[in-house]
């Protein structure tokens, strides 16, 4: 590991020997009566990339501002084995009467550590009795082993960052079947309020009456967020009781996908998954999902996010009848999405169903 890649000590806090982490943390609280330690979960970020330390620290700071936890940052570099290093710090926010509430952060930089070493480092520094949530950065690679994930309560992944989605998905599904942990995918979370908006749109009785006439679905996603669109499409197919997805006859443009399924009424529903044009509003590309449109017969429901604003617009047209609504939109920041997951406590039961269907969609879009 070169010196340039060494973490900035100021950002990570106080470097301490691994064996005296707990004692050093206690010292922080003993020295300052105005600080109160608070912790509801153990929250760990695990990464095998060196370059993102600053981003991870910023994410942990944003998350701890809303959710008290013991934060662990584990960066495990693929290099020659070297002694692990550790830093301690605290993220604090004002509380009352001049007091502040703080969450502890312990940062580890490991080199060439295997799953056993990672397990030892993580599990040796948990706040006891509190659940462990791990936000796994990037692909599920070398250290994603049973002895590690079997101790995790909730695993957060981001399938939009997977280099080989089909293989990663199989690995995740295999682990999920063998161990009892909860999985959250930020790509799924990115569509949470859009799915809610769709449910709201079809609370309109007129639109619901025409839903069986559905012929076409179009999903437009931001650059790099195809997985969010695929998960959304798979969910739509499942909720509408569509048959197995097949490639549609019409050839899509590069990067786009066109699929179809047979509806329970025997009709064909086409699904177009499109990436926003690169020339489009640059702000739009920070959004995972830009629009969703369901149309057919006399019905059209369009849900869109203008320039990635904080709100989703819903337009419902059913014959002569039409109206528009505005709803809050999902966060565009990863930390915001993780925070939303923490607020929701229990995961979505739908996600488990959709994840099982996803291989069909990857196959139909040629992503396997």
């Amino acid at each position, binding site marked *: 590991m070169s010196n340039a890649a060494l973490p900035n000590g100021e950002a990570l806090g106080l470097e301490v020997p691994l064996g005296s982490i707990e004692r050093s943390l206690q010292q922080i609280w003993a020295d300052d009566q105005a600080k109160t330690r608070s912790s509801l979960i153990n929250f760990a970020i695990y990464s095998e990339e060196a370059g993102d330390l600053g981003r991870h620290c910023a994410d942990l700071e944003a998350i701890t501002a*809303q959710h008290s936890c013991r934060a662990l940052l584990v960066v495990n570099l693929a290099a020659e084995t070297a002694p692990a290093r550790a830093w301690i710090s605290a993220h604090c*926010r004002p509380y009352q009467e001049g007091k502040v509430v703080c969450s502890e952060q312990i940062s580890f930089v490991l080199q060439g550590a295997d799953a056993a070493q990672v397990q030892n480092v993580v599990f040796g520094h948990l706040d006891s009795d509190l659940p462990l949530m791990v936000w796994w950065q990037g692909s599920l690679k070398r250290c994603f082993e049973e002895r590690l994930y079997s101790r995790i309560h909730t695993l957060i992944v981001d399938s939009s960052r997977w280099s080989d989605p089909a293989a990663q998905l199989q690995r995740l599904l295999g682990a999920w079947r063998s161990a009892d942990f909860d999985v959250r995918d930020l790509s799924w979370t990115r569509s949470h309020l859009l799915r809610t908006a769709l449910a709201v749109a*079809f609370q*309109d009785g007129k639109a619901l*009456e025409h839903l069986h006439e559905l012929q076409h679905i179009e999903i437009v996603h931001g650059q790099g967020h195809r997985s969010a669109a695929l998960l959304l499409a798979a969910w739509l197919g499942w*909720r*509408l009781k569509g048959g197995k997805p097949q490639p549609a006859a019409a050839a899509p443009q590069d990067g786009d996908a066109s699929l179809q399924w047979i509806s329970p009424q025997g009709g064909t529903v086409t699904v177009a998954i499109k990436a926003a044009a690169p020339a489009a509003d640059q702000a739009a590309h920070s959004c995972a999902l830009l629009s969703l449109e369901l149309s057919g017969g006399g019905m059209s429901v369009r849900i869109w996010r203008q320039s990635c604003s904080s709100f989703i617009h819903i337009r419902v047209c059913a014959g002569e009848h039409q109206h528009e609504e*505005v709803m809050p939109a999902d966060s565009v920041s990863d930390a915001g999405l993780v925070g939303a997951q923490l607020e929701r406590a229990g995961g979505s039961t739908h996600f488990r169903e959709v994840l099982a269907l996803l291989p069909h969609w990857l196959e139909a879009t040629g992503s396997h």
Partner: protein
Amino acid sequence: MAELENPFEENLLNRNRAEPCTVVIFGATGDLTNRKLIPALYNVAACGDLPPQFKVVGFARRDKSDEVFRAELEEGNRRNSRQGHDEELWSSFAQNIHYHRSEFEDPAGYVRLKQLLDRFDRERGAPANRLFYLASAPEAFVPILDMLRASGLNHAPQGRWARVVCEKPFGKDLITARALNDTVAATFAERDTYRIDHYLGKETAQNIMVLRFANALFEPNWNSRYIDNVQITCAENLGMEGGRGGYYDTAGALRDMVQNHLFQLLSLVAMEPPTDLSADSVRDEKVKVIRALRPLIGPEAVAANVVRAQYAAGSVDGVARVGYRQEDRVNPQSMTEAYVALRLFIDTWRWQGVPFYIRVGKRLPKKATEISVHFKKPPQVPFATRRLLGNSSENTLVIRIQPDEGIAMRILCKQPGQALNMQQVKMDFRYSSSFGTASPEAYERLLLDAMAGDATLFARCDEVENAWRFIDEIQRAWHYSDKPPPMCEYPAGSWGPREADELLRQDGHQWRLL
């Protein structure tokens, strides 16, 4: 025709989803609408929980346009919204707010209201559900309900619902509460009637059931074998500021707070586990507690178990304060209590012999509402020769309702050192320090529940009537007996009259120090 199912509904949030509706607020130009109801609805919208094609109609006597009404509400929302004020969201939200001018007793006003709601239905393309919110002065409740019935607005179109939300006070005694219940029952079915008690919308009040029934630690000990006494305190440091003396002097602490808010908390603490979390299962158990309260009949029984008091001049937070009878809009000869302390017994197997002490008062040293459960002392056999700390040697579980919502537990630990000395320590959970996100305002939760048809956090008619039945006996002893119990006095800024301390001292107890 079978109801179509929305395939996109997901049990995403473990919370109620409101159904499309129009909310008609009677008394819409009042403080409650401006300060609480509209900001609550706006925040429900900001969380994405408002249904589509949602409308608000403000019904009041003053003459004003939709635009003026919206502008007033916008100003109120800027001041009072929990999540701030966003122009884009407000703009979308406010376009669905309308104003309807009418006297509450004017039949023509209700005909025009019906026409307005019908027009909204035509614009929607389907009839909507209707939620009538009585936020007017209580004396207008009956005329409004009569007019809703006469105009047919109490009946929803087929497949839809019409509901009514009643603000407190729900009557001022058993007779008036029954009369009001009769009028409500003649107008709306009980399942469509939502009597609001905003204490039940508070996070910690809802948490009482979770604490008791989701933790195996507490429920086995939640009875007379292990619990020595329970104290419920609702302290206010305010007096009669802002002209509230006019209303308060006609109500008093017993009717204003105990009959509703504190009895609701008492019910949640003392009830048996419900068989499920449906509204009626929970409310069945709550009403059993009120029914099992040992009645206080006659002035002797009341004098022995209830202390009433008014504050004399004193100081709060270093500011000199006048006595209750010198307050603005208060009768100088007033016999209305600004403080009341009660010793109650619940005659059930679980609670036999356990006193429940309740105190509520104005101009106390600080604002705080909490429930404290005091456990019996252990036999102390191994520590018999050790000096303990009097009453503080008992374990206490404290449920803080407001402010600083949370739960604390007091336990005994060994002091470090060679000697075996014991020290009380406190384990403290605070919502605000553990969860960075602010809890929703009580009205947000309650409005959402009313729109979703979940009445769990609302009082049922038998709860209200049984509570009044108990309270009326005390009022009778105070105001209609030959030997009424005395009106005690305490200096403003103190923790109440000496007589209230004596009430507990008789049992070997003392009020928890807040």
